[in-house]
């Protein structure tokens, strides 16, 4: 019983960075920009967040710094793809490669360092409940904040006027431009907001989940988050569920090993990556389903006044 509660708790925790990054990418993609740089932005934010936490001792400062780092690196990406109309795939890859190099370079002096004063978190009253308490209500505040983000982003895009404008930018930038909306600036804003969320995801891993810095520690979560946006057919609530599902797959390996299942650990570690492939295959095999849900201008450059 207790193990199950812990497993649920661990699933929520390991799904959170995926959800944060996935939601960030969802915002990007809703306005028509696909950012393959998620992995790099998360790495940059992870090392910046860890450094900030290490020097300031405050997780809040760490998350703020990481969000800023994510937004800045996304801003650089955005400036290139939105104003200079560089290829979105190539530029995103550049962010990922740069992020890997930058984080490894800056991170050298933080290898082996630990963060002091890990605090236990518990929601008042609810956290004391038997089973439900340890399963759901003893998480870092960022876990609950992520759920709120998902709810807010879903409502924002589907129920507000601004959300509608942003969706129109992603569906048909030419029309949005003709109606007088500043398509490029709106795209940049969303790209940077997405970067900030990816940054929070990166910092969650290095400051809360691990908590330590290791080179390449994001370990493909940025790419899995990209797959999640497809899996969720660009819906925030579905994305959150998908993230927890993947978090569960990550935890499954530990649970199976704990239960004494004799499979080499490397095969267990392959699970999230294989699951991503399986999910992509399942969701993509119905092209209509993707076409109906995907923002139409996704990945395409926009030239105003052409």
């Amino acid at each position: 019983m207790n193990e199950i509660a812990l497993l649920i708790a661990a699933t929520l925790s390991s799904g959170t960075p995926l959800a944060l990054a996935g939601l960030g990418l969802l915002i990007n993609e809703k306005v028509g920009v696909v950012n393959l740089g998620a992995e790099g932005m998360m790495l940059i934010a992870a090392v910046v967040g860890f450094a900030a936490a290490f020097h300031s001792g405050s997780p809040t400062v760490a998350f703020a710094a990481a969000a800023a780092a994510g937004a800045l690196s996304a801003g650089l990406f955005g400036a290139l793809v939105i104003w200079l109309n560089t290829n979105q795939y190539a530029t995103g890859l550049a962010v990922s490669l740069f992020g890997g190099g930058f984080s490894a370079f800056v991170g050298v002096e933080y290898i082996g360092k630990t963060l002091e004063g890990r605090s236990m978190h518990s929601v008042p009253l609810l956290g004391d409940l038997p089973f439900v308490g340890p399963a759901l209500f003893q998480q870092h505040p960022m876990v609950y904040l992520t759920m709120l983000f998902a709810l807010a982003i879903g409502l924002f895009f589907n129920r507000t006027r601004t959300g509608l404008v942003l969706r129109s930018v992603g569906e048909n930038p030419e029309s949005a431009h003709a109606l007088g909306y500043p398509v490029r600036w709106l795209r940049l804003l969303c790209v940077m907001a997405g970067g900030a969320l990816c940054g929070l995801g990166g910092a969650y891993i290095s400051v809360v989940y691990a908590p330590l810095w290791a080179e390449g520690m994001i370990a493909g979560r940025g790419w899995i988050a990209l797959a999640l946006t497809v899996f969720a057919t660009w819906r925030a609530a579905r994305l959150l569920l998908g993230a927890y599902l993947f978090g569960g797959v990550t935890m499954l390996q530990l649970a199976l090993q704990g239960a004494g299942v004799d499979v080499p650990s490397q095969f267990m570690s392959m699970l999230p990556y294989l699951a991503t492939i399986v999910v992509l295959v399942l969701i993509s095999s119905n092209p209509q389903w993707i076409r109906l849900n995907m923002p139409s201008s996704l990945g395409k450059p926009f030239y105003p006044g052409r």
Partner: protein
Amino acid sequence: MLQLEARAEASAFWRYASPVVALGITLALSALLFVALGKDPVRGLQIFLLEPWNGTRAITELALKSTALTLCALGLALCFRSNVWNIGAEGQFLAGGIAAGGLAMWLTMQKTGISNWAFFPLATLAGALGGAIWASITAALKDRFNANEILVSLMLVYVANLLLSYLVFGPWKDPKGFNFPQTVTFDMAIPRLLSGFRVHWGAVVAVVAVVMMWVFMSRTFKGYQLQVGGQAAAASRYAGFSARSTLWTCLLTSGAFAGIAGAYEVTGPIGQLTPFVSVGYGFTAIIVAFVGRLHPVGCVAASVLLSTFLIGGQLAQSRIGLPAALTGLFQGILLFSLLACDTLINHRIRLKAKP
């Protein structure tokens, strides 16, 4: 106010000037970085750019790294030209390495005493098969289920890494290796080009591959079909060129080339399988392909440049105590600058008075 204006025709000048300018920007930023880190920028750049060229041994090491990078980048150039986004060359490199390494291990255990020259074609074939099979997973899933090749090929990099790790920690571990995660040291190696230096005949294979690829891309109808598909998908469909055939050709070719690179690395300079057979060649090759203008000959030049960076990073670590990760940082800056400069191929900057 500065404004970008679309050119009527792509500028041939900027297509080739852009990498040069990008390199200039990268070096300028690197010099600034050295200053910021309290190092002498002249000395820093000297170590980074010139030291890797200093002496016969250094140049043969450059050739060794350039061989691996060129082979990986050739296939990627074909893929990117054809709008097939294979970014999993690293996984295909590892798969080729595993295949050739497994073969070499088996031949060693059987005490076949096979000569290096007889082993050379076998290793090449094993590597090509390993890499092509690994890439074919991506091709099959894209072809049959329309699964995004970027994500699938990248996920397979992690899977290949873990597979290699499983093999060397598990069934392929050298029983007499003091429990280190590595296979036996192979009895044979692919033949060396110069005795006493690690550079091997794979370098010659790479040069042949460059010529073959150039002929294929610019002198055959099939190569033309692939590139039409990349530049104008609608025109290509209208002409009846098969997108499926493009997908498979590109992925199998680039998988095979990356696999051969992995095979040579494992059965050449390393001589056994370890968890660390790649230093990220498959990812660096992406930058090589772009810097080399997606052209086979350009890929060679870009490979030499990026190899200089790779070795320069190691030297910067040993000589002036900077982390070797500096290389990755410079690579990233180079690709960023390149993409920005590439804007000038299709655009010009105009000075426009404010209305």
